[in-house]
């Protein structure tokens, strides 16, 4: 009886686990994209007008 219950919950649990894993993957992707955007923005800010001012 207990084993059956465990099996019954298994599919649901597997689905829930897959969903959590998907959400984690999305969160990691968003964090990496944010990090890229962060370094890009900081680089532009730090360079400031120096790019336009450089000798050609």
């Amino acid at each position, binding site marked *: 009886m207990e084993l059956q219950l*465990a099996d019954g919950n298994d599919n649901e649990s597997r689905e829930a686990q897959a969903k959590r894993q998907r959400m984690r993957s999305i969160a990691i992707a968003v964090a990496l994209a944010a990090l890229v955007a962060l370094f890009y923005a*900081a680089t532009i800010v730090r360079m400031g007008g120096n790019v336009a001012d450089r000798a050609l």
Partner: protein
Amino acid sequence: MSGTIEAETNATGLAGSLEPSVGDFVQLMKPRVMSLVIFTALTGMVAAPGSLHPILAGIGLLMIAIGAGASGALNMWYDADIDAQMARTAARPIPRGRVTADEALTFGTILSFGSVLTLGLLVNWVAGALLALTIAFYLFIYTMWLKRRTPQNIVIGGAAGAFPPMVGWAAMTGSVSIESVVMFMIIFIWTPPHFWALALYRCRDYERAGVPMLPVVAGTDETRRQILIYSVLMVITAAAPIYFGFAGMTYAVASTLAGAVFLWLAVKVWQIREGREADKAARRLFHYSIFYLFLLFALLLGESIAARLIA
């Protein structure tokens, strides 16, 4: 197979799930502690002289917050055994079986190095070094060394929670000055009465977990005496921004009134020593202490913003 694993994990009293959610990782970062860190660091940044591009300032604040979250995760990794024994911490992700200790260690380590390097590279290395010191102090000095060994754990360990305004100040100026040391001192002296008030009504929890908090080792009477002494010192320290000239009249009046209430609550804790009323007094002081610190930094922040707007 997974049914067997689930049955086993349930048998050990852990939650059935083997896949941690994003929310579990957020919990590892102690979001409530993080919010106070963000607030005090922001105050340090706004109170500091000079200016920084808003994007760089935003990155600085974000990295300080992530660094604080990282130390929270590393603390939960190391303290998982005692967290499981205390009612206040038993629902944390590791004791609940939602996140493994290894996952918390990896998460905390990546965030620690990531936040320090990013702050150093994009803002400045003084702030980066101070953030590294904060994380290292919290993990190695407080969590690993002091917490399980001495009732002075939170007195010395309180420094870790006091660094954020100093890191914020350093992010803006690239240096450490007396004003940032004063903000550090306010949080440093505030920490003992805040934590000992909690320890008074959670004494059994700490005793069961074997954490030598002051009430467990020296008794509740001595703890009440120490709370009162530190409360007096804290109110005096809270007046330092006025003396050093980076706080105005609003801060002077409001912090004095709020300090008087703090002292009154500390006296109540000292006077009421038995039964439910004693727990109630300690609880009241604990909750008020959070409001008090928030108020002090809100006043400093508000006055600094006003000064910047007028200038």
